[in-house]
């Protein structure tokens, strides 16, 4: 199988639709292909949602049987020899680099409704492979959408943020300039503001002060975007007060 073929197997892999032999080959590929590893992890999480949707009410007898059995089952030692779950792919640590390409979209003058965007390709763009390219394409599409609306804000410390929203694409892009680097071991995390409830919209690249980020997931009725400082890898819910809360343009 060619490498191009392998890159396309993330979906089949996440659905357990590969043969044992193909699974083994793809897992070797995952170990060296960050784009696929990230995508496979996301698609596995997506497949799990298909599972959640068919939740049933288990019989009471099952509970008794399971709870009785665990009394006599010895647990594995934590991370002994060999990986406990060879099928799983690393997640959090890989989350950051996906924005590397997206970050190459530098914003120039996003004020007043019309924006001029410059697209610079990073030298390592080739290595960033499909996933990042898709994000970039999508990001560019949001910026170029006929119904794109922008709102800019100054954050007081000299940095500026601009949010670009395309209702027709149900997507938003957040552009910052002059943002200070987060403290070591910290990262800026973006959130959709769903009526006060924060929904993660992805992480920013801690290595860049200027970047454009496509917010993860659809706008889906959210009223704005928030930024918090989180431990590296991000959090499921904000653990600190937002540095900035920017309402989406109407």
């Amino acid at each position, binding site marked *: 199988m060619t490498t191009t073929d392998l890159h*396309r197997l993330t979906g089949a892999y996440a659905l*357990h639709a590969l043969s044992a032999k193909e699974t083994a080959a793809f897992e070797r590929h995952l170990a060296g292909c960050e784009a696929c590893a990230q995508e496979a992890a996301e698609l596995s999480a997506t497949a799990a949602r298909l599972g*959640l*949707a*068919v939740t049933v009410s288990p019989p009471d007898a*099952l509970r008794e049987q*399971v709870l009785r059995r*665990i009394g006599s089952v010895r647990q*594995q*030692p934590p991370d002994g020899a060999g990986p406990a779950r060879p099928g799983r792919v690393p997640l959090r640590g890989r989350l950051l680099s996906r924005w590397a390409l997206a970050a190459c979209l530098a914003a120039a003058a996003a004020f007043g409704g019309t924006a001029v965007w410059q697209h610079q390709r990073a030298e390592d763009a080739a290595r960033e492979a499909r996933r990042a390219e898709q994000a970039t394409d999508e990001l560019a599409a949001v910026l170029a959408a006929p119904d794109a609306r922008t709102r800019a804000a100054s954050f007081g410390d000299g940095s500026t943020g601009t949010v670009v929203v395309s209702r027709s694409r149900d997507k938003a892009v957040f552009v910052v300039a002059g943002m200070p680097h987060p403290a070591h071991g910290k990262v800026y995390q973006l959130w959709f503001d769903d009526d006060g409830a924060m929904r993660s919209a992805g992480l920013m690249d801690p290595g860049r002060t200027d970047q454009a980020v496509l917010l993860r997931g659809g706008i889906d009725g959210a009223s704005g975007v928030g930024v918090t400082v989180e431990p590296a890898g991000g959090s499921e819910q904000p653990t600190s007060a937002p540095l900035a809360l920017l309402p989406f343009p109407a």
Partner: protein
Amino acid sequence: MKEAVHIGANPSSTPGLQELVGRVALGDEEAFAAVYDAVAGPVLGVVRAVLRDQAQSEEVAQEVLVEVWRTAPRYRPDRGTAMNWILTLSHRRAIDRVRSVEAAAAREHKAALLDRTPEYDEVTEQVEARLEREQVRRCLRTLTELQRQAVTLAYYRGLTYRQVAEALSLPLGTVKTRLRDGLIRLRDCLGVTA
């Protein structure tokens, strides 16, 4: 429709379950009982969707839940939520069972495969489960017909992509692509962030 699909939040990221699994990793049986209560419904649901047979499904679900206890010390939160870990394991074990049975039995007829659409259990009254079901249904409707068929045959019927190709009379490459772009569309619709 933009009604409050996110209000119930994503059950797979329910705070609390991570922590409970952490306690299970230390041998806490009480915490395991709480984990059981949180995941047994989804676990049995996944297994039953694939296996259909109730008795066999309960047997495999029991194995999965015991495996959760046994391997909890090796669960790595940095690699995904506990619910994702447990449901991926459930699907994997259901698939293993299907394939071991299939290896010994004749291949089912193509028409019979297409006939089997996922059964959504309407019994559970849990609000969170209902919201999840509605959201997944809504998002499945955003897929193309081929994407939806390919994804549901693979996930809910446990078919390999080769079997999906056979069932839908499509080239292998097309099926690989449909499984991938179908899941990507679903991911974006559901706002899955891994």
